[in-house]
């Protein structure tokens, strides 16, 4: 609550409203999601209403940097299992998604500096932001968290770009918990090319588990078709026992000529530390931009092969999202 009041005071105390709104993007972002777990005969819902903001700070000679702030009031309904930041399956909370400031006014060789709560720079998620969408690259499941508080360095150079981060491992809390930390990075070709390739790594301790990962991700686009892949390998040390971890995704996607309709299908092989994780999945999803503000999306997830101790997944998810 104190954080929210702080934001209000900060906004109201800006030198002038006109100055504050210069180079400011904002959007009210509302979504309603229904998850139907056909196997478990369970239906859950997730509602989110928030503000998505982006502000560029400039001097008379150039940009100094920018800030991103995403604050969402999120309500769960019968969501089991519920995400770590909630206390029950029907809980509701204010959730900070991305919230960071970025200094970009350094010299040609000096990296840009990011401070705050941001998506870990790793794999496909680094170049394809999926926040608020049904499309997902299992960032959180593979790394232990999708976002974390910390500092990052990045630069777009002539032939390639990189992003490195040191974060505290507190996930939604800006602090280190039991010596948690994460060092993450990705180096890759420019993400506007038809063929994009990247190499990522992660090392650290999160939720009392030491984690190491390396990954190769790639994207190839031809016409309105795209083929994407990510292969991540690593180890988790849980209670003095190192266990190998694997995650492999292949996606085929198609976009209509006007960009309104998107279709994707994914094959995922995963072998995580959770014994009940299904290890081969198929995801199929569509999204349709009804108008400039309203988007409908639907995704289905089915288990292809499950380990003996695992659970079959047969999920259907629907989402309506409105951005004003």
């Amino acid at each position, binding site marked *: 609550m104190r954080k929210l009041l702080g934001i209000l005071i900060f906004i109201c105390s800006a030198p002038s409203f006109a100055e504050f709104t210069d180079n400011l*993007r904002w959007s009210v972002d509302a979504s309603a999601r229904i998850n139907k777990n056909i196997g478990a005969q369970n239906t859950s819902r997730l509602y989110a209403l928030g503000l998505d903001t982006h502000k*560029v700070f*400039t001097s008379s*000679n150039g940009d100094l940097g920018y800030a991103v702030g995403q604050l969402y009031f999120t309500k769960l309904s019968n969501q089991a299992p519920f995400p770590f930041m909630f206390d029950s399956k029907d809980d509701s909370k204010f959730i900070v998604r991305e919230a960071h400031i970025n200094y970009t006014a350094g010299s040609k060789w000096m990296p840009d500096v990011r401070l705050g709560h941001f998506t870990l720079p790793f794999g496909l998620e680094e170049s394809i932001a999926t926040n608020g969408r049904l499309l997902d690259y299992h960032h959180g499941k593979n790394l232990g968290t999708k976002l974390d508080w910390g500092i990052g360095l990045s630069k777009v150079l002539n032939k390639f770009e990189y992003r490195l981060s040191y974060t505290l491992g507190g996930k939604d809390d800006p602090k280190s918990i039991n010596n948690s930390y994460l060092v993450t990075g990705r180096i890759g070709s420019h993400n506007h090319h038809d063929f994009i390739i990247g190499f990522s790594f992660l090392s650290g301790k999160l939720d009392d588990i030491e984690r190491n990962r390396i990954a190769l991700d790639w994207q190839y686009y031809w016409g309105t078709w795209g083929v994407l892949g990510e292969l991540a390998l690593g180890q988790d040390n849980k209670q003095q026992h190192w266990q190998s971890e694997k995650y492999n995704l292949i996606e085929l996607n198609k976009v209509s*000529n006007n*960009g309104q309709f998107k279709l994707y299908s994914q094959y995922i092989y995963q072998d995580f530390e959770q014994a009940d994780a299904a290890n081969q999945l198929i995801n199929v999803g569509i999204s349709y931009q009804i108008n400039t503000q309203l988007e409908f999306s639907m995704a289905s997830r089915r288990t292809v092969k499950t380990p003996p101790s695992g659970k079959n997944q047969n999920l259907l998810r629907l989402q309506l999202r409105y951005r004003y």
Partner: protein
Amino acid sequence: MKVLIIISLLLLCTQNVLAEAYCSLRDPTAQIQQLFPDKTTQLSIVKAVDNSTRMHVQRELPRNDLHFSELGKHTLYVAMNNDKALGFVHVRSEQSKWGLVEIIWAIDTDLTIKSFAFQRCRSPKKKLIDNADFKSVFIGKSFAELKTLLNDDGVTANNTLLSKAKEAPDLANVVLRCALKTLLITDVLWGEELKKFQ
């Protein structure tokens, strides 16, 4: 109390902005550097493309429209060498049969085309026109001069441009329409503010 805070936040935000999640916004840093190698910094100026801009385009360029993703806030970059403006950079999308084509336009301070680069173009024929010979038709031209390259139908290019387009006339038409809309919108929305750099 929570509801009051949400309402207060919403009341502070009373303008209509349409876009994808802002965490995915990226400046085209590499391409700006390629188009303006002497650039030391870039200055962003964000403006809203709205329905009145769209109607302006329809009036000046009959049979043309803006793609729905072109509505909302857009950034124009001023490429700076210390305190001197080298030119402007404006990214715009145009629909094609290979999906959206995104082109980064480098514009001189007198609002003529300086050069351009493809940000996203999934046409297999891109390499046929991504060369100096084709670009030379655009370089140095203003909106009015570029408009003379349009046929009477308002959407296709005439032979002056198509003679340089080899086997890629459809893509050449897309690039021309994009150039025209870019110069027009730059002038309509940013023109007043850009005068201090001219």
